[in-house]
Each structure stands twice: as structure tokens, then as C-alpha cells.
């Protein structure tokens, strides 16, 4: 395995004098965000098991990668996330309620209940780009958006995040290639969490890790310990700096592990050897960062208890609000296909509004086109 950047030692220590460039508040914000992610996981699992939401994506094990990367981005930068990037959204202040609206696919969901859960889309307080299910399609989008920023002379950087499996997709090949040729301000973050659903890394690629794939495109790359928040933060910071200076894109591989199933529909015991879970359990990224905070005097059990309670309560109340929110109106089936609703779609909508009225189903919203 290639050399891997590590900053926080297992016991929580860093090299003397290491400065991550974050205030105490900033450090605690990182920790709190990771706990928020854990709470999100926990509550969504319960909701899913109770049949109240259809599906969720667990994040245990990869929280430091998400939060470390997010912490290196400015609010004016863009994030092109994968469906597993809850932590990036939460770090930048996207509200749990707004995220829960998506999990329930209700009327307040910014995607208007059209997508499956975990397919978020936000433009505020940061561009957190609309998540697509097809793997890898968003890589060239980040490159195109970056080209636009560059052409206008802005210093915006575009971070695009994807999994180990994502490196086999078409979008990886074309996105990496175009970005390198155009010297586009993009940071490619490959979250190598060991599996693509059930496919282990050695059946995904014959290369030694994923960072080396950048060689094919003449692009600089780095491999970092993905369970080390500072290592990820540092690599992403260096990459954004280069990008802002006009020096082009970077590929970063964060080596981490998915401590659970691919989604709430998956049973990893069919394919992940138990020893792997045991081995990685010891490397828990939240625990590692906790030890760092403790050494720095920012953590004690009271802090922990309060934060855990608060974050769980925050997510829980978000879920309650979202669950009580109405389903989307019928018209949401027909709007946003085009900027204006064309005749044939309008007629189909009117057909449905009428049908629902005739059946006496009121539940599905007004059934009128917004003008």
C-alpha cells in the first residue's frame, strides 16, 4: 500500500506544534458534526425499521473523511456529494430538518419528494449539489462547473466526492481526464471504504489503491488516512489551495471503512468477513478525534454527554417535524420537467387532478399548477 498521510495518532496525539488551522470552536464543531451524523444514522435506522421511511444510508466509520473534507471548503465553494455525505452537509449548516424532509419525501423536501431518501439537493448555505443515483455522473458536472468558475476568474473550488466503486464509472474517466486537461479547480475525493455494496476493492481494480489512478491523467494525488480528520482536512486544504492558484485538480484517496451495510436494505454479513469489522472497529474515527480533543483539554465526559443528548434531540425533533409535514402536492409530479409546463404534460396533470377529485382523494395536495 502506498504511503498514507496520518496526523492524529491512534492515541489522539499529533506531532508537536501541529496546527490544523481551526479554533477551539471549530474543533468542537467538527466533533459535534460527527456526532450529528451518528445521531442521523441511529434515528434513520429506527425510522426505517419501523417502516416510516423507506431507506437510509449508514455512515458509521467514515465520519472523519466527510467532516475533514468539508472543513477545508469555503461556503462559496461547491460540493458535489455522493449519497453518503451527510457529514459534509451538516458541517456547513444545512439543517437536519431540511435533510429529514428529504428522508420523508414530503412537501418541504427541496427535491419535492421526487427522489429516494438521501438524495439531497441544496444551494444554501453552500452549494450542495443535487445527488443522483447513477454512480459517477456528477464528476464531469463538477469539472464543468469548475470550468465556469475559472472562466469568470472566480476562486471557487469544486469538491466532488465518490466511492471506491465510483472509480470504475464512466464519469470518473471523463471527469478526471477533462479536469486535468483543463486544469480545472476541482478536488476529487475518493472515499475508499473497502466495498462497493458487496464488491471488495480487489475485485474493483487491480491497482494498488485508488489514488494512483490519477497517474493516468497526469494529475497529482495523495492517499490519506480517512479515519483521521486532520489528515483529510490537510490533503483537501492543500488541493484547494493549488486549485485556487490555478494549478488544477488533485485526486485524494481517503482510506476508511464502511462499518455496516451499504444501506438499510443490505446485510453485510453475507460478504464482509467479521475480522474486518473487528479490525476497523479499533480505528473508529470519532473516538480518535475525541482522544485528540481530550488531550487538548476540549473534551470531558460532560461535554460528551451534553453533545450526544443535544445532537440526538436535534435529529429526533427534525424527524418529528418532517414526519408531520404534508406529502407533496399532486402538481409536483408535473412541474419542473421543463421550466414551463408544456401542453401535453399539463393535460396529463389535469387528467390526474380530475381523477383524484372524482375518487374523493383529498390527501394529495391541491392539484393545481403553480403559475
Amino acid at each position, binding site marked *: 500500500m502506498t504511503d498514507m498521510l496520518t496526523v492524529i495518532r491512534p492515541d489522539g496525539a499529533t506531532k508537536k506544534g501541529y496546527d490544523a488551522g481551526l479554533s477551539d470552536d471549530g474543533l468542537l464543531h467538527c466533533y459535534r458534526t460527527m456526532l450529528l451524523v451518528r445521531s442521523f444514522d441511529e434515528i434513520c435506522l429506527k425510522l426505517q425499521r419501523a417502516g416510516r421511511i423507506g431507506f437510509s444510508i449508514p455512515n458509521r466509520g467514515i465520519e472523519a473523511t466527510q467532516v475533514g473534507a468539508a472543513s477545508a471548503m469555503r461556503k462559496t465553494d461547491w460540493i458535489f456529494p455522493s449519497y453518503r455525505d451527510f457529514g459534509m452537509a451538516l458541517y456547513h449548516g444545512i439543517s437536519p430538518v431540511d435533510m429529514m424532509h428529504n428522508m420523508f419525501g414530503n412537501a418541504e423536501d427541496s427535491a419535492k*419528494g421526487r427522489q429516494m431518501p438521501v438524495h439531497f439537493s441544496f444551494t444554501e448555505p453552500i452549494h450542495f449539489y443535487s445527488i443522483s443515483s447513477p454512480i459517477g455522473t456528477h464528476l464531469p458536472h463538477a469539472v464543468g462547473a469548475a470550468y465556469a468558475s475559472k472562466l469568470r476568474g472566480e476562486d471557487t473550488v469544486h469538491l466532488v466526492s465518490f466511492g471506491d466503486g465510483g472509480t470504475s*464509472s464512466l464519469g470518473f474517466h471523463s471527469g478526471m481526464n477533462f479536469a486535468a486537461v483543463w486544469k480545472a479547480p476541482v478536488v476529487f475525493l475518493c472515499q475508499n471504504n473497502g466495498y462497493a455494496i458487496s464488491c471488495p476493492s480487489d475485485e474493483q481494480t487491480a491497482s494498488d489503491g485508488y489514488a494512483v489512478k490519477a497517474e493516468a491523467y497526469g494529475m497529482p494525488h495523495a492517499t490519506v488516512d480517512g479515519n483521521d480528520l486532520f489528515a483529510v482536512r490537510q490533503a483537501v486544504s492543500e488541493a484547494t489551495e493549488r486549485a485556487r492558484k490555478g494549478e488544477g485538480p488533485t485526486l485524494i484517496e481517503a482510506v476508511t471503512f464502511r462499518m455496516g451495510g451499504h444501506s438499510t436494505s443490505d446485510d453485510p454479513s453475507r*460478504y464482509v468477513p467479521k475480522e474486518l469489522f473487528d479490525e476497523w472497529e479499533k480505528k473508529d474515527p470519532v473516538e480518535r478525534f475525541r482522544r485528540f480533543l481530550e488531550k487538548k483539554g476540549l473534551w470531558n465526559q460532560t461535554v460528551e454527554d451534553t453533545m450526544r443528548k443535544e445532537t440526538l434531540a436535534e435529529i429526533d425533533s427534525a424527524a418529528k417535524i418532517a414526519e408531520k409535514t404534508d406529502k407533496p402536492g399532486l402538481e409536483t*409530479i408535473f412541474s419542473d420537467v421543463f421550466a414551463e409546463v408544456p401542453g401535453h404534460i399539463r393535460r*396529463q396533470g389535469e387528467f390526474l387532478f380530475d381523477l383524484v377529485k372524482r375518487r374523493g382523494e383529498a390527501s394529495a395536495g391541491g392539484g393545481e399548477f403553480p403559475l
Partner: protein
Amino acid sequence: MANMTLIQAVNDGLKTAMRGDESILCFGEDVGPKGGVFLATEGLTTEFGKERCFDTPLSEDGIIGTAIGMAMNGLRPVAEIQFQDFIFPAFDQIVSEAAKLRYRSGGQYTAPMVIRTPYGGGIRGGLYHSQSGEAYFAHTAGLKVVIPSTPHDAKGLLLASIQDPDPVLFMEPKALYRAVKGEVPEGEYTVDLSTLRTVREGRDVTIYCYGAMVPVVEKAAAQAKEQRDIDCLVVDLRTLMPLDEEGVLEAAKQTGRVVVVHEAPRFCGYGAEISALIAENCIEYMEAPVKRVTGFDTPFPNTLEHHYLPDDRRVLDAIEAVYDF
């Protein structure tokens, strides 16, 4: 005979085929140890070894592209695309290569292979786990398109598809995977491609459907009989390409009133071809407009999918409309 679900029939079909012919192999994303996300390939790696049933990297282009190479060199690949929505990265390989290889090489190279893929709505899958793309493929000369609606047909059509000398896209209605059960013969048998299945006889209205819409139409037809004494002739198309066009026209002429039902969007959907065949070949028999009951011309929604998908009530409305015309 055993009573099984549609997904069990698919699994049984794969095992039966692989036992009978060493050149058959299955691969795709998560089809190995996990057995596929719907368990269609459960037990295959154990029984046949990982050279004949295995996971691939996450590339549909690679899956179909390599399947073509295997097929032309003596193997019979049965490739799985995890959801039909994810077939589009392989669209070029399917449309430009698999479908055209025999033609462009004057028959020197061929790609006898099966692409299995679950399609359609009803599982709250939203935009990307619900689509019905049959029209794209039926419009592509050189591809066969098969869609079963019962466990019996699922196994029989799958075995026929695997034996077929041409590339076959085998679309499985995932909404029916566990929703229908039926008798399935043991061992080898085939259901001929390009044959229609008469689901229900009737003299008043002809309804064409396939896949997950078949039980919906059956329900509507039963209601039409019960509530209005309308006798519906229900036809399960099962092979969309090459279609038994004569059979379709025959069925239309029998009643002079036609409804076509599918989940996919209406515009340029498969139903348009059925309407067009009728308008071109037996319009003079028609006593009413040819009605389509379809998904809307929008992407597939999530929360409101039950409003998007045709249901028995919408089909019944259409039956009444053409009957009362």
C-alpha cells in the same frame, strides 16, 4: 411443478440453464456472494464456482462490453444490470455493438447473450430505481426484448432467451418479484419468444399489456365484467421485439375497441407502436379511439408514485371510455 415467486423462477431458470450448459455464465454487480440485490443469483457462485458467477467492477459499459466479447467467442453470458435505470452507461455497447454486430460483420461475428435487468415502479424507488425503458430497446434493430409477467413465463422465457442466437434484453418486473406466485415446471422447458399470451378471453374490448401491468389489467378486466358486464380480451405481449404483429392485429379486430397499458411515459412509448400498428393495418375495424393508459411524461416521482403508475381504476376508466364511445 413447484409453487414459486417470480424471482425464484428466475433463479431456478438460471440454475437450470447453467447445469445444462457449461458455457453459460452470470456476472454483474453484486451477483456473486451477495446473490444480487434481489437475490436472483443466490447460490450460483456456490454451485458453479466464481469463474461462472462473479461480481464485476462498477461499470455497466464493461459488463456489457465484455459479455459481447465472451458471446462472440463461444460463451453464453447472462449479464445482470442491477436496475434498468443503470443500463444507460452501457447504452452504446448495447445499441451500437450487441445489436449491430451480426449485421455489420455479415454474420461472421454474433453476440448471443442475455441482459437481465429489473425494471419498473412500485417499490418507492424514485427517479432512478423505477424506470421502464423498453421503448428505447424495442426501437433498436437487432435486439430482442422480453418481459415476463408470471413465474412460469419468467423461467420459460429466460431459458428460451438464453438459447436464442441473438442478444436478448430480459426485463424483469421487480414489482412482481415477490408479489406473484405460480406453478413452475422443474428442469428445462421453454416458452417460445414472439408469442402472445391470452390472459383472458373477451369480445368487447382488447387490452394489451406486459410485465407488472398484467395483474393490474386483470383486476380492471374483472371489475369491468362484474360492474358493467364488459368482456375484455387481455393480451400479455411478453416479447416486445420481435412482436407477433399478426397476433396483435387479430386481437384488435376481434373487439374493435382497444386499450394499451404500460408504466413507461406515453410519448413515443411502446404503446404508440401498438396504436400505430392498428391505425395502419386495421383502422377500419375500430369502433372507438385507441386509448393509452401509461405513466406520465415526466421523470418517475417517489412519494407520489402510486399516482404516477397506472392502476386498475385508470384502466377501468379507459375500458369504459372505449366501450361507451
